[in-house]
């Protein structure tokens, strides 16, 4: 990238290789490479977080509070890109969605229709049998909550957490299968996981990632 300040070749890093001013981000870069980690589900989160913080320290707008407006604009855009990348990578669901998106799966659906993501993934493959089962489980949960049957609610939550964890493990394996051979399976697993997560969201104090 040609540096906006010294007009020499600035390299691919956040700071110009020639004069060290902050450069605007390359929008074509994927979120894994933004954080300098290989594109895969089983990503090294610790390395990604370390890089996120190191890069943030270099390009955060707070470093440029009194700088040239162009530097401030570049710093803002860089940090938006960094924050977006880290938000996607640190959450397993978002990370999985993003990997499928990169592989060309239209999980986000047609963006002209808001909330189409739900429709699209449901259309991918939630089998009617699966939907029935989830529906029944949710009714059972609501019943237990109405009856203030705490042990029952806890037991159901525990069972669902296990299912969630198992599905997440399979999803990770499917996503990282060499050559993308199991991506369609990953998409189906992701759909299931969304239902599990919504089930857990019904229980106060439970979170899929807690």
């Amino acid at each position, binding site marked *: 990238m040609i540096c906006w300040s010294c007009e020499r070749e600035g390299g691919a890093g956040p700071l110009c290789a020639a004069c060290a001013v902050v450069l605007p981000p390359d929008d074509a870069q994927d979120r894994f490479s933004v954080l300098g980690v290989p594109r895969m589900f089983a990503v090294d989160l610790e390395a990604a977080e370390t890089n996120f913080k190191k890069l943030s320290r270099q390009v955060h707008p707070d470093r440029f*509070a*009194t700088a040239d407006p162009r530097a401030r604009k570049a710093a*803002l855009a860089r940090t938006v890109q960094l924050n977006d990348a880290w938000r996607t990578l640190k959450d397993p669901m978002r990370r999985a969605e993003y990997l499928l998106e990169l592989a060309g799966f239209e999980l986000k659906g047609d963006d002209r229709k808001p909330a189409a993501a739900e429709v699209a993934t449901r259309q991918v493959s939630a089998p009617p049998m699966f939907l029935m089962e989830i529906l029944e489980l949710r009714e059972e949960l609501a019943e237990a909550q109405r009856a203030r049957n705490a042990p029952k609610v806890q037991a159901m939550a525990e069972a669902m957490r296990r299912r969630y964890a198992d599905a997440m493990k399979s999803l990770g394996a499917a996503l990282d299968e060499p050559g993308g051979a199991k991506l369609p399976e990953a998409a189906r697993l992701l759909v299931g996981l969304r239902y599990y997560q919504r089930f857990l969201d019904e229980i106060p104090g439970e979170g899929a990632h807690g």
Partner: protein
Amino acid sequence: MAEALLQIGEPGQTRPKRACRTSAVGIDLGTTNSLIAVVDGGKPVCLTDEQGEAIVPSVVHYAADGSVLVGAQARDELAQAFPRDTIASVKRFMGRGSRDAEATRRLTPYQFAPGDGHVVRFAVAGGRAVTPIEVSAEILKVLKARAETELGVKLAGAVITVPAYFDDGQRQATRDAGRLAGLEVLRLLNEPTAAAVAYGLDKQAEGTFAVFDLGGGTFDISILKLEDGVFEVKSTGGDSALGGDDFDRAVAHLLLQKLRQAAPADQVIAALAGQAGEEGAVADLATARRWRQVLDASRALKEALTFREDASTDLPAHLPDGEGPVTVGLTRTEMELAVEPVLARCAPPVRQALADAGVRADKLSGVILVGGATRMPLVRQFVEKLFGREPLGDIDPDQVVALGAALQADALAGGSTQGDMLLLDVVPLSLGLETMGGVVEKLIHRNTTVPCGAAQTFTTFADKQTGFDLHVLQGERELADQCRSLARFSLKGIPPMPAGMARLEVTFTVDADGILRVAAQEETTGQQASVQVKPSYGLTDEEVERMLLDSFAHAEEDVQVRQLTEQRIEADRIAAAARAAMADTPDLLTPEDRPAIDAALAHLAGTREGLDHQAIRRAIEALDEASKAFAARRMNLAFERGLRGRDVGAVEARADETAAGKHRHAHHGGKH
């Protein structure tokens, strides 16, 4: 000289100018109180007035002659006499519209000027209508002047703190107030984050902390992770209309019930007692005064009951046998019963914030208390119960936010020992756009780290549609009319196409201040159609510009008015000091002294009411002259009593300076 009389017994009053590397300041613009701090020698300190007081009450008085007075005098001496012209708790009105229920439907002593609904305007003395932004700017100007006097230089910039839960409109309004006060606003910083910075840097705290911030008018809860100079906000929540003010109101309600029993014939009390806490501005001036009295008495009782089990106050009332004060008493238990329901409103946001952060209360490393209301024993007990641990209060909860802001300002201005500090704050409330059917499409979810961005593509609904109307919203609810309206956009000039063909890309960017910028572009034609932003609340950029220009145009006038105000304050202080000195050592007065000083005092009292600030200054000098011999005798007495730790030269130099009328400089001791 009179001032020297008052101060002679207090060693250590002369202060050198601070030797700060940067002249960047941190400002806590609070609902009840405001403070300003700088980093001096690596440590943050709050700047104080000549009496050593760091707090400036956030109370602004508008006088009929056009002068403006800010602070303790406005609160203590003018708020009761001029309840409509003395604005307290202006922060509650920031970024609010005049039809905004949250701000204006409560019982207030203010009068609102009719407006276009975008901003609240207070109708104050002199036929003026002022916006909350202008009122806040007056507070900021006083703080700025304090810093410039103390530092002896022009300020490089300021970090102003805002409640984490402030929405976009409230943030914009705060930024505009800073601009209007002539400050370079380097950053808006969330108050809980500022507090965490103060603890993290000063106390070397590490781990996951909850910051429980209960101020005068706002409640914030933030969960932060502190590690290696990184302050990462995990989640935030709160209520931007809940605070110590509401405790005062609850206590006031109780006081009014008691007053009504003691003075059943008092119609005003009966009316207020029936109305307290309910909607509507107070109808007439007399009632507004009484309401202000009751509110002030409630605040004083609440503060007294922090240290005592019971307290009482005298309030005027109409009794069967004429006007008379009625004594009403309150026990701590009674007060606590009254405020408990208000306090209970803090619990749900705390639970939500913990859940959002994915942290259990028992896994926290500590709970940091911020805000004056956390001084109340009841609040501390409440926090302890809620988190199952004793909260931290090592740093003064009134000062901690300003101190943290000063550290951040220092870092931003680049003078920093905190060069490695990194603040990762979040969006407090989701941001979205209204789509068909009044449903909100969220583009940025709450608790997303700022700065952040999002884009969404929309399309035309009808054939040959040539424009888009977009509605920007903030909030968690599903429907547009349940969320806060931030702005409306029109995008025009799209060539007529069949429905669904035009593609409009809307981009949201939230900067590090938490302020949203929206851009829109029609993709198929590549043409960037004109975007018109009309904020739903607050002022447009043009309005702020105009106010700035107006303030330049009136700068000359303002200087006159300020000098008059300053001389009046000076006159009052010096007269009080002289009276106190005479009462303190009457035996040092010769038979000639007393009539001479009394005459000078009377003359000063007379000129003080006039509009000539130079006449007031001359009257002050005359009082100095009349009390000179008396002052010298007091000084001698002080020396005889063995004033230690003080060199004679300094005291004399000070006395000389004051005699020459340079009262203010004496305290900054620039010459010593």
